C-alpha cells in the first residue's frame, strides 16, 4: 500500500518537473500571454505589413519610459539591429529564444518585433521599479544613528549595502528560489574575511530549497536554519543597514531576499540578540550599562512569574516576614491558587499585545489604554489577582521587549510558559530544571554549524565586542567563532588622541 502511494507521489513529482505550470516549450508565447487581459500586443503603424509589433505587460512596465524612450523611435523603418543602437536604454538585447523572451516579459521588459511573423525580438527594459521609499526602521528604531531601513526591493537594498562598502571585496551571489515565484535572492559577503565554509554552506542550503513561493526572508530563514524546531532564531532578520554593514565587515554572511524588508544575517550567537546598534553610538561604558539592563531584562522576564508561583505555592518561608506581610495582605482576598492568577494575567497581556498589533495605530492605542489601565485596575479591585502580581507581570512584559530583535522577543515570551508549569509542579527545583533544559537546548543549538550560545566554547575576543562592548581601540580582532579568514581589524592604535597634560610629561 505504502509502495503504491510512494510511487504515486514520485510520479506526480516527475510530472511537475516535466511540465512546469508555465509552459516553456510553446513557441507561441503571444497566444499564451494574451489569455491575461493586462498583456498588450500592438502594432505601432496602421499598416499591418509595416514594422513594428510591440508587446508587454501593461501592469509591469513604466508607461512614461516606454513613451519617452521607446515609442518615438518605432516610426522609422529600421531593422531590429539598428533599432537596438538607437533606443537610449541600456538594458537591451536581441534574441529569438522563446524561454528568455517569456522570462523577460514577466520581469517588465517590452518585446519589439518587426511583425507578427518574426521570432526575433528586441527586449527593452521598461520595468516599473516603483516601490515605497526608504523609511525609518520600524521594529529596530534607535534614537541615534542612521535612520534608513530596508525596503521590499532587492536592488535598493543591495544598493544601500554597496554604497556603504565600496569595495571590490564585497561579493554578491545572486540566485533564484521558488518554483513559481522565482524570487531573487542575493548572498553577500566580504570575500577576504568571511569563512569559505560558511559561504559554501549558505549557498548550498539556499540551492536545496524547494518551495512554491518565497514571500519573505523569514520563509528562507526557517528553511535554511540548522534546527527548524527551535524557538530561537539562528539566523536573525534585521532592517537596519548599519547592523548589516557591521556584520559583513566582521565576516558574517548577509542574505537579501526580494520582496522582504528584512535582511538575514548568519551565523549569529545568542549575544547578538541583545546587541542594539545604538550600543556603538554611545560611549562604551553607557553601552555596557544598556547591555546589562537588557540581559537582566531577559532574565527577569523568564524568571519572575515562575518565581512568584514557586514561592507562594511551596516556599513562603523563603520570604522574610516583613515582605511576606504585604504579599499576603494583597493576596488574602484572591480565591485562586497562584498559577491561575499568573495565567489570567499573562494571557490577558498576550491578548492586549496581539489585538493592538493587528489593528491600525489609532485603535491600537485606545485598546492599550482600555486593556492595560482599565482592566488592570478592575481586575485588582475585583480581587481576581493581587496587586503585587500586576506589578510583577507588568515588569516582566516590559522586560521581555528589551531585546533588539523582534523575533527573539517572541521566543522569550513563549519559553516562560513551560517554566511556569514546572514551577507549579516542583517549586524552585522545577524552575531550575526548566532553566537547565533551556541551557541544554542553547548548548545544542548551532547557527550554520557554529555554536549558538556564544560563551561556549570560550573565545576571548567574543567578549571584547559581543557580550561586553569595549572601546573601539580594543576591538582588535574579528570574532573567532566565525572563523574569519582575516583575523585582525584595521585599527587606529592611539587610545587617547587628546593633548597630553603636564602629568604625563
Amino acid at each position, binding site marked *: 500500500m505504502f509502495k503504491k502511494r510512494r510511487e504515486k507521489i514520485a510520479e506526480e513529482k516527475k510530472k511537475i518537473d516535466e511540465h512546469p505550470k508555465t509552459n516553456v516549450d510553446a513557441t507561441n508565447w503571444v497566444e499564451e500571454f494574451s489569455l491575461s487581459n493586462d498583456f498588450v500586443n500592438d502594432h505601432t503603424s496602421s499598416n499591418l505589413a509595416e514594422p513594428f509589433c510591440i508587446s508587454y505587460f501593461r501592469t509591469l512596465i513604466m508607461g512614461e519610459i516606454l513613451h519617452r524612450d521607446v515609442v518615438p523611435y518605432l516610426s522609422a523603418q529600421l531593422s531590429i539591429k539598428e533599432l537596438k543602437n538607437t533606443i537610449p536604454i541600456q538594458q537591451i538585447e536581441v534574441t529569438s529564444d522563446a524561454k528568455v523572451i517569456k522570462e523577460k516579459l514577466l520581469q517588465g521588459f517590452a518585446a519589439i518585433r518587426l511583425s507578427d511573423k518574426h521570432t526575433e525580438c528586441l527586449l527593452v527594459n521598461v520595468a516599473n521599479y516603483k516601490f515605497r521609499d526608504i523609511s525609518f526602521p520600524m521594529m529596530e528604531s534607535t534614537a541615534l544613528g542612521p535612520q534608513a531601513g530596508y525596503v521590499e526591493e532587492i536592488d535598493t537594498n543591495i544598493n544601500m549595502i554597496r554604497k556603504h562598502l565600496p569595495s571590490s571585496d564585497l561579493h554578491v551571489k545572486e540566485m533564484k528560489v521558488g518554483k513559481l515565484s522565482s524570487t531573487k535572492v542575493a548572498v553577500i559577503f566580504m570575500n577576504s574575511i568571511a569563512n569559505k565554509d560558511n559561504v559554501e554552506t549558505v549557498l548550498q542550503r539556499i540551492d536545496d530549497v524547494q518551495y512554491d513561493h518565497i514571500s519573505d526572508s523569514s520563509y528562507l530563514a526557517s528553511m535554511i536554519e540548522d534546527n527548524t524546531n527551535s524557538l530561537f532564531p539562528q539566523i536573525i532578520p534585521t532592517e537596519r543597514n548599519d547592523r548589516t554593514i557591521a556584520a559583513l565587515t566582521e565576516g558574517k554572511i548577509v542574505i537579501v531576499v526580494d520582496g522582504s524588508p528584512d535582511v538575514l544575517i548568519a551565523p549569529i550567537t545568542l549575544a547578538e540578540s541583545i546587541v542594539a546598534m545604538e550600543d556603538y553610538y554611545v560611549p562604551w561604558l553607557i553601552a555596557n550599562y544598556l547591555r546589562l539592563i537588557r540581559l537582566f531584562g531577559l532574565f527577569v522576564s523568564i524568571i519572575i512569574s515562575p518565581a512568584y508561583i514557586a514561592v507562594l505555592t511551596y516556599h513562603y518561608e*523563603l520570604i522574610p516576614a516583613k515582605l511576606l506581610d504585604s504579599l499576603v495582605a494583597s493576596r488574602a482576598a484572591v480565591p485562586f491558587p497562584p498559577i491561575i492568577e499568573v495565567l489570567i494575567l499573562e494571557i490577558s497581556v498576550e491578548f492586549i499585545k496581539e489585538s493592538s498589533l493587528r489593528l491600525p495605530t489609532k485603535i491600537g492605542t485606545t485598546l492599550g489604554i482600555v486593556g492595560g489601565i482599565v482592566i488592570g485596575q478592575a481586575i485588582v479591585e475585583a480581587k481576581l489577582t493581587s496587586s503585587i502580581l500586576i506589578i510583577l507581570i507588568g515588569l516582566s512584559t516590559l522586560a521581555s521587549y528589551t531585546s533588539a530583535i523582534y523575533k527573539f522577543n517572541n521566543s522569550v515570551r513563549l519559553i516562560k510558559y513551560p517554566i511556569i508549569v514546572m514551577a507549579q509542579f516542583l517549586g*524552585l*527545583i522545577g524552575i531550575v*530544571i526548566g532553566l*537547565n533544559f533551556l541551557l*541544554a537546548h542553547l*548548548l545544542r543549538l548551532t547557527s550554520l554549524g557554529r555554536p549558538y550560545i556564544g560563551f561556549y566554547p570560550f573565545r576571548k575576543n567574543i567578549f571584547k565586542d559581543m557580550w561586553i562592548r569595549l572601546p573601539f581601540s580594543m576591538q582588535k580582532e574579528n570574532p573567532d567563532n566565525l572563523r574569519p579568514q582575516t583575523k585582525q581589524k584595521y585599527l587606529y592604535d592611539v587610545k587617547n588622541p587628546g593633548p597630553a597634560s603636564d602629568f604625563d610629561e
Partner: protein
Amino acid sequence: MQVNIRHQISPYFLFFIIVGAQTGVGILGFHRIIAKHAGYDAWISVLIAGAIIQDIVLLMFQMLSAARGDIIDVHSQIYGNKVGSIFSAIIMIYFWLAAVSVLREYIEIIQVWMFPTLPTWILSILILVLSYYIISGGFRVVAGICFVSVIYTILLFFNHFYLPNNYIHIDNIFPILDHSFIDLLKSAKETSYSMAGFEIILMVYPFLKDPETSKKYAQLGVAFTTLFYTVGAITTFLFISEKQIQTTIWARININALAKFSFVERFEYILLSLYLIKIVTIITLMLWASSRGIKLISKKKQKIPLIVLMVLSIAICQILDNRYILNSFLEMIAKFSVGLFYVYIPILWLAFNLIKKRTI
C-alpha cells in the same frame, strides 16, 4: 580508537570536566565522613588524597597515551578482546552506579530539606530526561554543561568564606596535627567517594585535541578540587566542632541556613535548587562514559545502552528508599572506587608497561 576531530575539544576543557566531575553532592556533607578518623585535622587528609590523585592522573595519562585510546583499548591490549571486555564492563558499571548514587543522594537532600513528601521517581525521571537530552547532543554539549557548572562551582567556592564572626571558633582546628599519620591516611581513604570523578579521563582521553597540554589542565583541575575541599573542610570545622559534626549529615547546608538577606530568608533553598546543575553534570558525564563504553564493547548504538541504564537507574532509586540502605549503598560505591582507582589502576599501569616493554 580515534575520534573524529570535529568532536574533539580544546585542552583547557579538561579542567572544567575534571572539576565538574569531582565536585558533587560530596561538598555538602563530606566533613562528617572524613572527620571519623582524623577529626579536625582531616583537612590535611584531603591534601594527602589530592596528592595521591595527582599521581594516579599521571599514571592514567601515561597508560592511555601509550595505548592511544580509552580504557577499553588498554584492556583489550592487555587481556585480549573477550576478557578485556569483561574488565571494561566492570568499570562501566562503576560509572553507572556512581551516577545513580549521586542522583539518589541529591533527591534525598531535596526530600529532607525542601519537599518531604515528594516521590523519588518524579525527580529521578525529570533529571534523567534532562540528562538524556544533554547526552544526545554529543560530547560537545556534555562538556558545555561542565563549563557552566564550574562557573557555579567557583561561586560555591567563595561561599566558603561566608564566616559570621559570632559563630566561628578558631580554636576548633587547633592544635594542628594532633592525630597520628595512620589516622590521617584512613581519613584520606574516606575522601575517595567525594573526590572521585577524575576517572572520567579513562573515557574522555580520545576526545582531547592535544593530550600533552590537556594533562596540565587535568592536574590543574585536580589541584582546584583539592583546594576546594580543603578550604571547605577548614571553614566547616571552624563552625562545627569535632563531636558535633558526627551528628550533622550535611554540614554545609546547615551553615548556609545561617545566611539572611532583606529579601530572602532561607538562602539554602536557592543554593540547593541551583545545585541541580552540578548533579546533572556528574550524571551526564558518568552516564555518557558508561553508555559510550557499552556501545564500544557491544557495538550497538549509544542510544540503547543509555536508555536501558536510565530505566535501571530509576528502578534502583526506587529501591534505595531509606537512609540506611542508601548509606550502605554509598559506602559500597566508595569501596568500589577505592578498589578500582587506588588499587586496580596502578596495578594495571604496571602490568601494561611490562607487557608493552616485552612486545617492543
